[in-house]
C-alpha cells in the first residue's frame, strides 16, 4: 500500500469545500447569534449582546406561530404519507399486469423540482383557473379559496406534500416488505390469526426499522419544506402556512437584522437536530437493548 499522503491529497478538495461551505457557515451563524448586527441600521457595528437575540426569540409571536404550524404540517403530512404509502406498498406485493409501468408512474413526482410541484398545485387550486375549486363548487357547492381560508391553504399544502413524497415511503416499504421471511406469516395463518392480528403482531414489528428510517428521512425533509409552499401560498394567508423555512426566507432574511436572523437559524437547526436525533435513538435503541 502506498503512503497515506496520497489518500489525504485525494480527500483534500472534498474536505476543503465542505469546510468552507458547511463548517464555517455553521460556526459563523453560531457566533453571530450572540451579536447584534444590522448593517443598515444607525449603528452598523457588530456588538456582542449575550443571549438578547434568544431572549427576543422566545417572545417573538411570528416565530412561535411559525413553529406551531410547522409541527402541525409535519405531523399531518408524515402520518398521511406513512398510512397511504404502506397501503400502496401492500398493493404492490401482488402480481398483476403492468406492475413495472405503474411503479414508474408512481415514482414520477419524486424527481420533480419542489418549486414545480408548488407551481402545479397553484395551477390546480387557484380559484377561477384551477380545476379543484371549480369541481368542488359544482359538485358539493364548496368554496375552496387558498388565498383567504387558512384551513384550506394548510390542507392543500399537506395534500401537495403527500402527492410529492408518498412514493418515497412506498418505495422504501416495498423494499422492506419484499425482504420479509414467509414463515411467520404462514405459521400465524395456521394458528388462525386474523388479518388485523397479523398486521399488529407480525408485520408491524418486522418492518419497524424500515418504517422508522422512512420517518427519519421524511421528517428531515418535511421540516425543511420551503420551495413548494413559497410558490403555492407564499406562507399565507396570514401565517397559516408560514413554515420555519418560509419564515426565515420571507420574514427574517429581508429584514437585514443579521444577529437576530442567525439566532432564528440556529434554533431551527437545533430543533431539526433534536427531532432527528430522537428518531435516530429510537432507531438504534431496540438493537442495543440491555440484556
Amino acid at each position, binding site marked *: 500500500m502506498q503512503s497515506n499522503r496520497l489518500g489525504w491529497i485525494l480527500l483534500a478538495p472534498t474536505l476543503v469545500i465542505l469546510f468552507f461551505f458547511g463548517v464555517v457557515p455553521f460556526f459563523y451563524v453560531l457566533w453571530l447569534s450572540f451579536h447584534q448586527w444590522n448593517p443598515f441600521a444607525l449603528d452598523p457595528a457588530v456588538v456582542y449582546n449575550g443571549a438578547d437575540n434568544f431572549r427576543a426569540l422566545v417572545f417573538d409571536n411570528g416565530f412561535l406561530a411559525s413553529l406551531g404550524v410547522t409541527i402541525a404540517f409535519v405531523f399531518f403530512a408524515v402520518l398521511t404519507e406513512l398510512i397511504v404509502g404502506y397501503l400502496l406498498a401492500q398493493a404492490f406485493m401482488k402480481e398483476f399486469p403492468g406492475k413495472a409501468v405503474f411503479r414508474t408512474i408512481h415514482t414520477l413526482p419524486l424527481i420533480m423540482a419542489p418549486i*414545480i410541484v408548488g407551481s402545479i398545485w397553484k395551477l390546480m387550486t387557484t380559484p377561477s383557473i384551477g380545476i379543484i375549486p371549480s369541481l368542488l363548487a359544482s359538485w358539493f357547492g364548496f368554496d375552496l379559496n387558498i388565498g383567504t381560508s387558512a384551513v384550506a391553504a394548510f390542507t392543500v399544502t399537506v395534500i401537495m406534500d403527500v402527492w410529492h413524497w408518498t412514493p418515497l415511503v412506498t418505495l422504501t416499504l416495498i423494499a422492506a416488505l419484499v425482504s420479509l421471511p414467509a414463515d411467520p406469516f404462514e405459521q400465524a395463518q395456521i394458528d388462525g390469526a386474523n388479518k388485523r392480528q397479523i398486521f399488529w403482531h407480525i408485520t408491524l414489528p418486522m418492518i419497524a426499522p424500515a418504517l422508522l428510517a422512512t420517518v427519519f428521512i421524511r421528517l428531515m425533509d418535511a421540516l425543511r419544506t420551503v*420551495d413548494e409552499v413559497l410558490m403555492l401560498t407564499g406562507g399565507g394567508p396570514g401565517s397559516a402556512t408560514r413554515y*420555519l423555512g418560509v419564515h426565515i426566507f420571507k420574514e427574517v432574511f429581508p429584514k437585514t437584522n443579521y444577529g437576530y436572523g442567525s439566532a432564528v437559524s440556529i434554533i431551527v437547526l437545533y430543533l431539526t437536530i433534536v427531532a432527528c436525533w430522537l428518531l435516530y435513538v429510537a432507531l438504534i435503541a431496540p438493537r442495543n437493548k440491555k440484556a
Partner: protein
Amino acid sequence: MKRQRTWLYLLFWVVVSFLTLFPIYWLFVISVKPAVELFSTPEVILSSVYWKNYVDVINDETLRGYMMNSLVISTGNAVLVTVLGFLACYALSRFDLGGKESIFFWTITNRMAPPAVFLLPLFLLLTQVYKFGDFTLLDTKIGMILVYCTFNLPFAIWTLRPTIDGIPKELDEAAFVDGASAWTVITEIVLPLARPGLAVTLILTWVFAWNEYLLAATLTNFNARTLTTGLSEYVTTTGTEWGVMAAISMFTLVPALIVFSLVQRHIVAGLTFGAVKG
C-alpha cells in the same frame, strides 16, 4: 375468484396513476391555452393546442439566459461533485486514514441540515468574507457550483462508496506492483469499473442541482439566476400570466423527467438515501 382480484388491483393502480399524473397533465393543459380561455370554466379535454406560451418563453432573452445558467451550474456542479466524490471515495476505500469513518459520517451530516438555516451565513460569507479584491462569489456561476457542493458532494460520496468498495483491491495493488502511477491506476483501472455508479451519481446530482431553488434565490441576482428562480420571479412580477408560468414550469420539468427515464431503474436506491437495502 383469483382473476377478479387481479382486476381489482389493476383498477386500483389505474386510479392511483391517474391521481399521480393528472396534476402534471393539468400543468400541460394550462400551458397550451391562451390567456383569455383560462378564465372560462376549466376544461379537462383540450379542444385546440396553443403553443404561443412556449414561443414566448423561448423568445424571452432573460429566461433564455436563466436557462443557460441553470444548465451551466447544474452540469458544472454534477461533474465537479462526481469527480471529487469519486476521488474521496477512492481515498476512503483504499487508504488507512485515521478517523476515516468519522469523516465519512460527518460528510453525510452536511446534507441533512436544512438549507434555510444556511441562507443567512452563506449570503454573508459570500458577500463579506469570501472575496478576492473586488471579486465576490455572490451572483457568480462558480459560486453557485461551489455552494451546491454542500448538499451534492455528501450525496455523491454516499452513493459512490459501495461502488468503489466493491471493486477488488487486488486489481489496483497488482498494478502498483507493476510500477503504475496512482494516476494510471485511478483512470485506467478503477474508473472504467466504477462507470455505472458514476453515471447514476452524475445524473442524480445533476437533477438535484437543476431543481434547487432556495439558495439560488438568495445568492444570485441576475448573472447566475437559474430557471427555478426565474419561475418564481415571473410569478411575483406578473402575477396572472398563468399560461407562461406553466410553460416555464414545463421547461424546468421536462429535462429532469428525460434524465429520470435514463436511470429509472437505479434511481430508487439513490432517492431513498439507503433507508432500506432493497
